[in-house]
């Protein structure tokens, strides 16, 4: 699903944000990406989306070499990658339903597809009661569920999340994580960047740990680690 070979990323002339990273992630895996602030987690995620190009090395996602990909093909890559962020990125003037439907509208899905898939994914994330609410009428956890619904409504084979629980309390975070777990069980590869220690420790999934841009640990059924 994901294959990074000798990937380095340097912004400007600074020290590299990622250095000589080698990672293989199989279809259907659930992976945590952990590390201190500034260790390069977001850079890793943005390389997957081809938001950024690596300074060195090759990245293959879903069988496509991102370093050789033509710009006009990038949107089609992104249709296969759902993304979730700490700040939800919901449109405030659209309801829950409209926010999720928007993701399908703008890739040209038919009204019929939208009418069937949106309620289905909203049921999956447990928001069928809130389809007509606006984001400011929802709690943080609910907003994050809307954004997960939007990321997953097109059934992408890969779901990326950058600090999805960064703004949420522990109980709500647990609910979000179990939602990712449920999505993972449908066969979707899930990659979550986080520094939520309890979460990582309680889930016992594969953990890739970054420090100063290097992979310092890659462990199945791992824990958050770091002695601090």
């Amino acid at each position, binding site marked *: 699903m994901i294959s990074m070979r000798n990937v380095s990323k340097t912004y400007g002339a600074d020290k590299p944000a990622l250095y000589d990273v080698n990672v293989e992630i199989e279809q259907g895996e659930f992976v945590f990406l952990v590390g201190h602030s500034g260790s390069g987690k977001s850079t890793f995620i943005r390389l997957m989306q081809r938001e950024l190009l690596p300074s060195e090395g090759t990245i293959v996602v879903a069988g496509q070499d991102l370093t050789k990909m033509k710009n006009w093909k990038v949107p089609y890559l992104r249709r296969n990658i759902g993304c979730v962020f700490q700040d939800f*990125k919901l*449109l405030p003037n659209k309801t829950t339903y409209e926010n999720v439907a928007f993701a399908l509208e703008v*890739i040209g899905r038919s009204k019929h597809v939208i009418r069937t898939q949106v309620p289905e994914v909203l049921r999956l994330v447990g928001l069928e009661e809130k389809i007509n609410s606006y984001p400011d009428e929802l709690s943080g956890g609910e907003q994050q569920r809307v954004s997960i619904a939007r990321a997953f409504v097109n059934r992408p084979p890969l779901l990326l999340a950058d600090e999805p629980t960064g703004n949420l309390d522990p109980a709500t975070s647990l609910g979000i994580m179990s939602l990712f777990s449920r999505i993972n069980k449908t066969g979707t590869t899930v990659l979550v960047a986080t520094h939520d220690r309890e979460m990582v420790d309680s889930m016992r999934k594969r953990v890739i740990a970054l420090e100063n841009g290097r992979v310092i640990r890659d462990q199945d059924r791992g824990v958050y680690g770091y002695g601090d």
Partner: protein
Amino acid sequence: MAINIGYFMSESIQSFRRNWVMSLGAVITIYLSLLLVGASLASSMIVGQVVRSVEEKVSIRVFLKDGAAPADVDAMNKALVADARVKDVTYTSKEKALEEFKLTMADSPEIIDQLEVNPLPASLDVDLEKPQDVTAVVEMIKANPNFIKVADRPDDPEKSLKYGQQIVNQLFAFTRVLRAVGVVFIVMLAVISLIFINNTIRIAIYARRKEIGIMRLVGASNWFIRTPFLLEGTLQSLLGAFLALLTLGSIQWFVMPKVKEIISFMPVSLSVGSSVQISLILVLSGVIIGLAGSAVALRRYLKV
């Protein structure tokens, strides 16, 4: 695709409403530019028609004295016909000249009835290939030795010739100035329109930056993201073009008939063909300005 068109239109209209001051500014500058383009096109077409109608009248008349020797007249005629710049020479006898005169004076036949003798001279009427050659051919005639022999007024040869070079020259100079001024104004206004559209689209992009971010995130194609903005710019300038056409149309319908009454001797009306041509040029320029303005803004402010 049907959904898309509806979506793009509603996006554009929403954006216009959200940002109506700027959008109106863009529409008004485009309106003014295209109005000027249309007006100068129309006036240069009309002036062109006037010039052509005057040019048609540019011929040289050589007035002959009564009783000029037919051999001399014939020699003059031959010299004219032999000149490459001359298209055609016709002889108008004294009788024919009087008849023509009667036609122009049909309103007051009593003047002609009072005439006891025919005061009009016979003439050689010279048609030219190109009206610009008038002066040169006049010089050629004056230099011909037969001219003095047949001229109506040998004492003042200039009075034996009639030609209309001056009007044509003035009209040509006038159209040249008109065109230059028109072009300068049009270029200026086109640039201002482009700046305005560029600005409205920049603001529209800024207002929708969150949506654009999400569209990029979920994989909307670049054209899908760009189209509403291109459409918005194009709709603005089409609206401007439409208003300009409306204004020019009302001038054509309500003002020009009055003008025609006042200067009935000149062909100041536009043919249907010319009007259609001008309308097409305006609509097309509108589309081009709109697309160009928004395309430039997209290049500068929308990274996809």
